[in-house]
């Protein structure tokens, strides 16, 4: 599903030494895997996630998504792959303000040129348990509910992979646990999920835990991550 070889990413700012954020990352993710990425702040987790999600390009290395090399595809092709193969969930939810839950979930379908947009969006909202909140705007939803809307949006186009960057980072423990349970369900129904977390307990619920440390990705956690107690 995902094959990365020697992915490097660095930032250069004038007057400062080059910052190597990802130092030759190798990664294989099989379909149906449920993977957590942990690691200290600033270690490069989000940078890797953005590259996996085709929002960013690596400086060097090879990235095969579903067997297709994607490192050098044109912008429009990447946009289409993001639309069809990848669902994003963000820490800040990123729902459109003043826009109903249903319309928020419809967004990926708008760019996918499909029919039955509303029906499919409504189904996705039912899937995350928000059938009673379709016409609510984000301001009228709790944080946990907003994140569920965001997950419904990530699901609606039936992507192969869901990438979640600290999906529970802005939520209290209880809502966070609810979101995790939802991810687990989605994984059990066959979806590939990669999520970043600072919470060791949540990471432990994933089938596989990767640790990022100063741009180097390792399979086992080097030591227990100091997440929220």
């Amino acid at each position, binding site marked *: 599903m995902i094959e990365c070889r020697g992915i490097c990413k660095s930032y250069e700012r004038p007057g400062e030494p080059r910052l190597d954020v990802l130092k030759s990352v190798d990664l294989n993710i099989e379909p149906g895997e449920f993977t957590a990425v942990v690691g200290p702040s600033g270690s490069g987790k989000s940078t890797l996630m*953005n590259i996996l*999600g085709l*929002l*960013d390009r690596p400086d060097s290395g090879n990235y095969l998504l579903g067997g297709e090399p994607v490192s050098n595809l044109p*912008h*429009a092709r990447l*946009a*289409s792959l*993001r*639309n*069809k193969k990848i669902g*994003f969930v*963000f820490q*800040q939810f*990123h729902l*459109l303000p*003043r*826009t109903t839950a249903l*319309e928020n979930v419809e*967004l*990926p379908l*708008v*760019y*996918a*040129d499909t029919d039955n947009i509303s029906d499919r969006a409504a189904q996705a909202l039912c899937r995350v348990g928000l059938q009673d909140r379709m016409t609510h705007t984000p301001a009228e939803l709790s944080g946990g509910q907003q994140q569920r809307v965001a997950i419904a*949006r990530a699901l609606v*186009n039936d992507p192969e992979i869901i990438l979640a960057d600290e999906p529970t980072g802005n939520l209290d423990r209880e809502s966070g646990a609810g979101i995790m349970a939802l991810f687990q369900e989605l994984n059990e129904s066959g979806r590939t999920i990669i999520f970043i977390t600072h919470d060791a307990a949540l990471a432990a619920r994933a089938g596989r835990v990767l640790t990022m440390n100063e741009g180097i990705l390792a399979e086992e956690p080097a030591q227990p991550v100091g997440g929220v107690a």
Partner: protein
Amino acid sequence: MKNGKVMAGSIRMMWRYKLRTFLMSIGVVVGVAVLVVIRSYGAGMEANIMNKMKQFFDATNIMVTTGFSADGPRTTLKLEDLEAVQAACPEIEAWDPSLMRRKTAQYRSEYHPVLVRGHSEHAELVWERGVTGGRSLDASDVKASARVALLGYKTADILFGDDDPLDQSIQLDGVPYRVIGILEPKGSDPHGEDRDDEIHVPISTMMRRIANVDYINFAKLRVTEAKYVEDVAERVEAVLRQQHALADGEDNDFSLFTPMLIKKMVARANKVFSLYLPLVAAIALLVAAIVIANIMLMAVKERIPEIGLRKAVGATDGQVSRQFLMEAFMVTLVSGLAGIVLGLGVLAVISARVDVPMPVSATAVGLGLAAAVVVGILAGIWPSRHAARMDPVAALR
């Protein structure tokens, strides 16, 4: 993504951000409304002035007026001057002097302030205005400085109501005048005076009994044939300069209006409507475009996460840019339509107020809409490109 969806999305965005939409639209609404109003107003007014001009001033007429000097109204135009003019120009068929004073007319308990005009027995011919009842002024009235008066029909209505004014006596400054006729309706003149609410008396009566002066305000000359008019006007000018003993190089102490000059004046007045005011509207629209571009750019900044998100869920650069362009376009299109409606409303009110028909100029409406669309596209291009080029990772941070 289909254009229809982008458009629906833009309309939804406009509705959701009403204040922003409103701020963006005022400039266009006002600009387009101004454009529509002045184009139609200008055309209506020109037609109206030309019509009025034709009524009061035809191709055989020359008007001699004194106008104002630095010390107030000039008192230099005398009857003798006009007699000299007539003697020098046989092509002048007739001429009629005029002197005006504002007076209060009284009939029984009815008082009415009104403009009183002194005229000669030639007024009927020169001004092409007869009477609907009674008779016009004649030579003996003028010769005798008779205390006789012609009433405009409105003046007659005001003073007499249902009574017959003919041969009744009205008072001007306490002096009795016999009503000998009712003037034909004439409407309002190019100066805006209601010519149906006025009183005519013999010029001699006006000069000696009412105003007690030896000058007149103006005189209207009627030439036998239109082709002589400009030539006669030149001789009239020469005679008047001689009469007034003006040295070479000295300015005229009178003004001559000929049909050609009037046409030029109307055209010049019209230029303001046809040239300068549309320029004002164009500037208003340009300013509107800048305002819209600014607000759009601010909106782009404010909506950075939205742009990042749209890209993350699969929007291409082109789709993002089309969305913002479409939003600017829709705002201005709707504002343009609103401006047209507003303009038509204002036009209807003005038209009713000044009582002049102002047919809606189709070019104005078309121009307004085209201007709005151009403004929308101009104002949208820059912000939309800005939005489209945004790096999604940076936008989502």
